[in-house]
C-alpha cells in the first residue's frame, strides 16, 4: 500500500493506483473529461489527452494529470490550488476554441460531458477564438452519425472498439491540428467492418458520435393514413424511466404503453411476444441439431451487431449461428402477414416501428434478407432515448401516467421473454423450453443463476434426460471472439452459446440512456428484468397462449415450412479488412 495526502487528508491505496483513484477514496472530486474506467468490463481509457484533471504536487512545478499519474509514497497532492483551477479553466477554454459550440441543436444537448464541464467552470465567453478544425459529417450508415468537428480526441471510442469489442474500426488519423478519429483510409462507416453495436457512441463524451435519429420519420408515419404498429424490446422498459428522472432500474412497462398510445400509435405491441416465439423456434432448432447430428454449437442470432461481427470475422463458420431472425424482425414479418390478414390489410398498409435499446437494429432493419418484396419486416427503428425525446416533445407527463396494457394479439408475453434483455437471458429462456420439449417433464426451478450476471464469459452444464448440455454465454464482442476462436480450433465442446455485443446485453445497449461511466446502472436494470420475470405466472415461452394460437391458426409446426419462410434468415460472408 502507498500512503499519500490529498488536500492534507491521508489515504493509503494499492500500488499502481492513480491520484484520481486515491482522491475517489477520499471523496475528493477532481473533474475529468477524457478519462473513463468501467471496471466491470475492464474498460480503461487512459489516453490522458485532455489534461482537465490536473493537480499540484508539493515541491513540483509542473501540474500532473490525476487520471494518469500513479501514486508514490509520501506524495502531497493539492487539487484546489489557484494554479490547478486556473489551468483547468484554460484547458477547457482552449477546447472550446476548437469546437462549434452549437449546443442548442446538438444531438448530445443535455447529455454532453464537455457542456457539463464548461457549465461547472462557469465559462461565459470563448476566450481564444480561432480556426476550428472541421470535417465532413459521416452519414453513410443507418446507425451511427460521425461529426468529427465535435471530437475532442479523448480516444474513448477507439479504446471501446479495439480493446472491448476487438473490431478495431476506429483509430487516430494524421497529426497535429488535422488529427481526426476515423476508420482506415478515412472510409465511411458503412464500408468498414463496423458492427454498429454503437458502444463507441455510448461512451463518447460529446456529440461527435451519435445515433441516426429517426424521430421525424416516426411522426410522419403517425400522421400518415397507414396503420402504425409499435413494438418495444424487453430492455426498454427498465431504462426509459431514467430519462424522466425516475429511479434507475424502475420498471415502467405500463406507463410506456400509455405514452405510446398518447403519441398516436394505432397498436401498441410487445417484442416480448416475438421473443417467446424466437424461443420456440430456437429451442426447436437446437433440438433438431442435437437429434439429427446437425452443426454444434448453435449460436444465438438475436443481436445484429454480433451477426455482422461473425459475418466479417468468422465468415468460415456461417453455419453455426441459429437461422432465427431476431425477435423484432420476427415480429415485423408477422405484423405484415398474420396480423395484416386478421385485419384485412395489405402489408403496404402497415408501418412497423421498433423501439429498441440498440442502434444496430437500425442497420439490421435495412438488411435485404429481412424484407418481403419491397416491404421491410420492420420499417423504422428508434432507440429508448429517441422514444424519450418523442414523449418529451409531445409534452406527456410520463411519471404521472396510469399503467396501461399492451394490445392483443401480439402483446402477450411470458417471463422467459422479459429476461432476453440481460446477458444470459436468451439461453436461459431457451433452456426452460428445450428442457420441457426434450423430457416431457415440468421444469420446477426455472432460474439458471450460473448464466446470470456481468462476468464476461459464463459457462454451465445442464443435465437434460441424462445428456449433458454445455452452455456458454458471452457479452462484449471481445469475449465472443475468444469463444469463437476456441470453437474454430476445436478446443471447445459446447452445444449452445448466447452472444450479445453489448456489455451486460441489451440493457447496456447503445440506444439506452447514457450510463456516463457508472455501470452499476446495468445491474439495476438487470434486476428490474428479473423482477418482472418473477412476477409473471407464465415463465416459459411455450406456455404463452397466444403463441400456441399463432401456431394453430397460422404457422403450423415449430421450425416447419411456414416458420422457415417467415421467421428464419440467412447470413453473408463479408470482408475481414
Amino acid at each position: 500500500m502507498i500512503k499519500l495526502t490529498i488536500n492534507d487528508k491521508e489515504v493509503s491505496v494499492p500500488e499502481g493506483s492513480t491520484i484520481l483513484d486515491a482522491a475517489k477514496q477520499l471523496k475528493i472530486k477532481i473533474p475529468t473529461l477524457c478519462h473513463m474506467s468501467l471496471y466491470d468490463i475492464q474498460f480503461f481509457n487512459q489516453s490522458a489527452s485532455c489534461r482537465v484533471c490536473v493537480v499540484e504536487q508539493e515541491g513540483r512545478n509542473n501540474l500532473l494529470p490525476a487520471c494518469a499519474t500513479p501514486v508514490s509514497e509520501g506524495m502531497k497532492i493539492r487539487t484546489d490550488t489557484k494554479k490547478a483551477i486556473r489551468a483547468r479553466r484554460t484547458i477547457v477554454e482552449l477546447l472550446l476554441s476548437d469546437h462549434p459550440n452549437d449546443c442548442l441543436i446538438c444531438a448530445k444537448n443535455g447529455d454532453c460531458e464537455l457542456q457539463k464541464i464548461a457549465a461547472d467552470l462557469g465559462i461565459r465567453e470563448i476566450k481564444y477564438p480561432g480556426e476550428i478544425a472541421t470535417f465532413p459529417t459521416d452519414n453513410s450508415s443507418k446507425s451511427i452519425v460521425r461529426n468529427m468537428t465535435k471530437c475532442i480526441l479523448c480516444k474513448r471510442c477507439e479504446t471501446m472498439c479495439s480493446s472491448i469489442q476487438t473490431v478495431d474500426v476506429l483509430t487516430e488519423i494524421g497529426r497535429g491540428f488535422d488529427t481526426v478519429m476515423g476508420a482506415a483510409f478515412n472510409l465511411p462507416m458503412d464500408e468498414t467492418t463496423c458492427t454498429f453495436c454503437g458502444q463507441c457512441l455510448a461512451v463518447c463524451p460529446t456529440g461527435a458520435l451519435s445515433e441516426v435519429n429517426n424521430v421525424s420519420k416516426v411522426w410522419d408515419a403517425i400522421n400518415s393514413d397507414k396503420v402504425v404498429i409499435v413494438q418495444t424490446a424487453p430492455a426498454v422498459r427498465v431504462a426509459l424511466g431514467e430519462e424522466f428522472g425516475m429511479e434507475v432500474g424502475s420498471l415502467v412497462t405500463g406507463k410506456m404503453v400509455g405514452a405510446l398510445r398518447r403519441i398516436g400509435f394505432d397498436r401498441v405491441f410487445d417484442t416480448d411476444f416475438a421473443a417467446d416465439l424466437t424461443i420456440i423456434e430456437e429451442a426447436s432448432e437446437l433440438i433438431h441439431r442435437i437429434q439429427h447430428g446437425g452443426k454444434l454449437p448453435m449460436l444465438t442470432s438475436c443481436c445484429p451487431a454480433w451477426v455482422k461481427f461473425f459475418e466479417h470475422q468468422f465468415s468460415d463458420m456461417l453455419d453455426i449461428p441459429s437461422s432465427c431472425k431476431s425477435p423484432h424482425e420476427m415480429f415485423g414479418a408477422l405484423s405484415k402477414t398474420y396480423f395484416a390478414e386478421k385485419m384485412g390489410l395489405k402489408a403496404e398498409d402497415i408501418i412497423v416501428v421498433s423501439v429498441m435499446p440498440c442502434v444496430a437494429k437500425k442497420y439490421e432493419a435495412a438488411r435485404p434478407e429481412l424484407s418481403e418484396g419491397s416491404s421491410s419486416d420492420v420499417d423504422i427503428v428508434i432507440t429508448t432515448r429517441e422514444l424519450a425525446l418523442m414523449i418529451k416533445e409531445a409534452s406527456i407527463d410520463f411519471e404521472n401516467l396510469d399503467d396501461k396494457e399492451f394490445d392483443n394479439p401480439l402483446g402477450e408475453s411470458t417471463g422467459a421473454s422479459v429476461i432476453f434483455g440481460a446477458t444470459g437471458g436468451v439461453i436461459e429462456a431457451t433452456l426452460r423450453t428445450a428442457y420441457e420439449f426434450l423430457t416431457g417433464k415440468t421444469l420446477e426451478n426455472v432460474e439458471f443463476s450460473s448464466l446470470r450476471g456481468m462476468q464476461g464469459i459464463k459457462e454451465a452444464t445442464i443435465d437434460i434426460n441424462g445428456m449433458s448440455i454445455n452452455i456458454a454465454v458471452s457479452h462484449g464482442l471481445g469475449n465472443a471472439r475468444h469463444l469463437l476462436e476456441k470453437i474454430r480450433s476445436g478446443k471447445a465442446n459446447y452445444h449452445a452459446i448466447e452472444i450479445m455485443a453489448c456489455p451486460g446485453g441489451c440493457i447496456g445497449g447503445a440506444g439506452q440512456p447514457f450510463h456516463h461511466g457508472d455501470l452499476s446502472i446495468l445491474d439495476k436494470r438487470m434486476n428490474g428484468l428479473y423482477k418482472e420475470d418473477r412476477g409473471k405466472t407464465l415463465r416459459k415461452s411455450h406456455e404463452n397462449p397466444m403463441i400456441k394460437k399463432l401456431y394453430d391458426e397460422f404457422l403450423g409446426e415449430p421450425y416447419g415450412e411456414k416458420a422457415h419462410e417467415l421467421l428464419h434468415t440467412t447470413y453473408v460472408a463479408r470482408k475481414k479488412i
Partner: protein
Amino acid sequence: MDFKFDIEKNMEKVRCLETFIEKNRQVPGVLIPVLQEAQGLFGYLAREVMEIIARGLDVPVSKVFGVATYYTQFTFMPKGENDISICLGTACYVKGAQEILEEVQNILGIKDGETTPDLKFSITSTRCVGDCSLAPVVLVNDDIYPNVNKKEVKDIIAKYKVEVECYDHL
C-alpha cells in the same frame, strides 16, 4: 482521390514485401520499417499495400493507417511523372514561396502532396534545398528553377504538360 493499385502488375514487388514481413514479423516495433520498405518498393503506400501489411503482421488495418498518417515521411498517392517540388524553407518562404505553391495548386487543381488523376503531375513541398541564394526555388524532377515569380509558374508547368487540354487553367 482513388488511384487503382494493380496487384498483378506489381506482383514481384508484392512478393518482396511479403518476404520482408515474413522475416521481420517478430521484431518489436516492426510496423514502421515495414511501411518504409513498402514505400521504398512502390514509391507510396497504396490502400491495397497497407491491407497486405495488416494481414501479414496480423494488426488491424486501422492501426497501420493511423501510424502511417502520423509520420510525414509516408505518402499515399503515387508521384506524378513530373514531380514539382516547391521549397518552403525560410529563405524561399520569405520571398513568397507560399504564393508560388498556391499558384501551382490552382493551376493543377490538386493540393500539396497530391497527384493529378492522369498521373502527370504531383506537388511536393520541401524544406530548404540548399540553394537559398536563388530563392524562391522550384524543382521539377531534376530541373532547378531559380528566382521564380508567380507569373512564371504557368510557363514552367507548360514545358512538361503533354496534352494542353487537360488543364483548363493553362
